[in-house]
């Protein structure tokens, strides 16, 4: 009995505390070793900054990239440029013991040369939002919090999904990310949220996650709902005045929602709720 208790507490202990040195493979495919719990972190990705704060590690952030604007307390943290135009001198001057980067941008080499530990963590797909949250939890010794956060996020998402799953009508939807026009495929992380919000994406999965499509396809698919296009601009596009969404005024441009949707982080449930309310206002009265 005693032995079992000791074993269980040991198990619990290892589940709640990260043992350092910690070696992991990051999103650049590099093996990185953290000698001890990082205490001075610079995050160059807004979604990573959000996740760290949601894990209660916000006070470990000594620097963030200029786009990290959530939660509000990050406004007091030093800004060090962005992934593509980093202010490397300012970054190094902050004496970080860990810099979180993306697999994009070329920050790794100069920082590693300066003797700073660099880990690339950039969630891109829907499932990666959860797996990277756990990775970040492990890195900053907040594993329990990360598991709790993921559980909470999944629970909040399920709450919305229960409502939308049995919706009698799932409006056909076109989501534009920029007017070239680029859109989202159903397997992209926005595409998954769109489906979970109870919409039917008009884009076939075979086109990939962020395809540049022909406007002919949108006219042909006659979506009932359009996201990401200015209503006046949609009306002005040739032939678009025949699309049901344009005819019935279901063309939505919500910059605040688009902004949250562009952050694959802890506000995923909030983004889903925002989408679901737009797709099925009748379910959220």
């Amino acid at each position, binding site marked *: 009995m005693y032995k079992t208790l000791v074993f269980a507490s040991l198990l619990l202990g290892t589940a709640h505390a990260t043992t350092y040195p910690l070696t992991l493979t990051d999103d650049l495919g590099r093996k990185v070793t953290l000698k001890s719990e990082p205490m001075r972190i610079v995050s160059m990705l807004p979604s990573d900054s959000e996740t760290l704060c949601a894990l209660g590690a916000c006070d470990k952030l000594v620097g963030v990239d200029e786009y990290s604007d959530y939660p509000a307390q990050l406004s007091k943290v030093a800004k060090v440029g962005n992934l593509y135009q980093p202010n490397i001198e300012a970054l190094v001057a902050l004496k970080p013991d860990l810099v979180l980067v993306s697999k994009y941008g070329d920050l790794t080499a100069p920082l590693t040369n300066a003797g700073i530990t660099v880990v690339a963590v950039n969630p891109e797909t829907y499932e990666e939002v959860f797996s990277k949250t756990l990775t970040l939890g492990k890195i900053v010794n907040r594993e329990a919090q990360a598991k709790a956060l993921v559980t909470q996020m999944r629970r909040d998402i399920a709450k919305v999904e229960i409502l939308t799953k049995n919706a009698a009508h799932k409006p056909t939807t076109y989501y534009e990310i*920029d007017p*070239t*026009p680029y859109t989202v495929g159903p397997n992209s992380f926005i595409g998954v949220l769109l489906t979970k919000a109870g919409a039917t994406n008009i884009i076939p999965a075979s086109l990939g996650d962020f395809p*540049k499509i022909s406007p*002919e*396809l949108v006219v042909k698919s006659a979506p009932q709902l359009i996201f990401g296009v*200015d209503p006046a601009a949609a009306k002005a596009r040739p*032939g678009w005045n025949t699309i049901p969404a344009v005819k019935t005024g279901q063309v939505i441009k919500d910059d605040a929602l688009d902004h949250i949707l562009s952050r694959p982080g802890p506000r995923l449930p909030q983004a889903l709720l925002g989408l679901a309310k737009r797709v099925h206002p009748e379910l959220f009265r």
Partner: protein
Amino acid sequence: MVKTLLLLLLTCCTVVLAVGLGSVPIAPADTLRAIGHGLSGAELSGSDVIVWQLRLPRVVLGLLVGAALAVSGGAFQGVFRNPLADPYLMGVASGAGLGATLVIALGLGSLFVPPLTLLGALLSVAVALTIAREGRRLPPARLILAGVVVGSILTALTTFLLLQNEDRVRQVFAFTLGNLAFAGWPQVIRLTPYVLIGGGVLLLLSRALNILQLGDLTARSLGLPVERLRLLVIVAASLCTAGAVSYAGIIGFVGLVTPHLVRRLWSGDYRVLLPISALSGGTLLVLSDLLARTLTRPAELPVGVVTTLLGGPFFLYLLRRQAT
């Protein structure tokens, strides 16, 4: 003569194919019916909308833009006697790019893109002309230098603006590759006067361009007002190009290479070169756009990529054949 007839046939076939095929498959009978409905002004629905309001104006705009770029390219090469001159030489493209970037960076609606690109393009030409002027003369070498440097400065400004608005980079990038995706009849109607006036003036000047090939001195001694002619050609060609850029973005290659193709297959006589270039340029662009929207359908490729991949190898083949 046979070659010209063949080209006309190719143009017709290309237009028919381009209207019939697209990212959304539509049966030939439905296509014809849609055109009938469109012409008669009947109520449009379903595939009628795609054929009449999206595809047909897209093809017509392609013809206009391709023609405008090719004619301006030929005229620029003639007036500078430089085989590398292209419609964007005087900073037209960079000025247009800056205009479009301003619209996107300031978050103005896409309806503002054409007027500001046009303004940017024409202003950059005006600046280049002013700087290059030497008293009343416009020496070609100074013009090219001024155009290239004005272009570089404007490109740097554009890049700076873009870096301040990184989330919009892709939109501007797409503009620099050209885009016919949102062509409609209103765009066609607005672009037509630029191409007709600019292109018309260039066609009227084709005899003078022939004389200019003999050199400034000879041309002057034959009574040609060289400087005024040069200014007129630049203004007309820039007008043509700026109009095209403001409705279709920057589509490279067509303007640079089409006149050379025509020179090699027909003749260097500008009275032949310019009209045949217009026809070939339009056909090349419509064909490229057809491939751009069908190769990966219902996704699309940037048309500028296709024009280069299609025209480039053919040009290299001609170059090689002539050399040996």
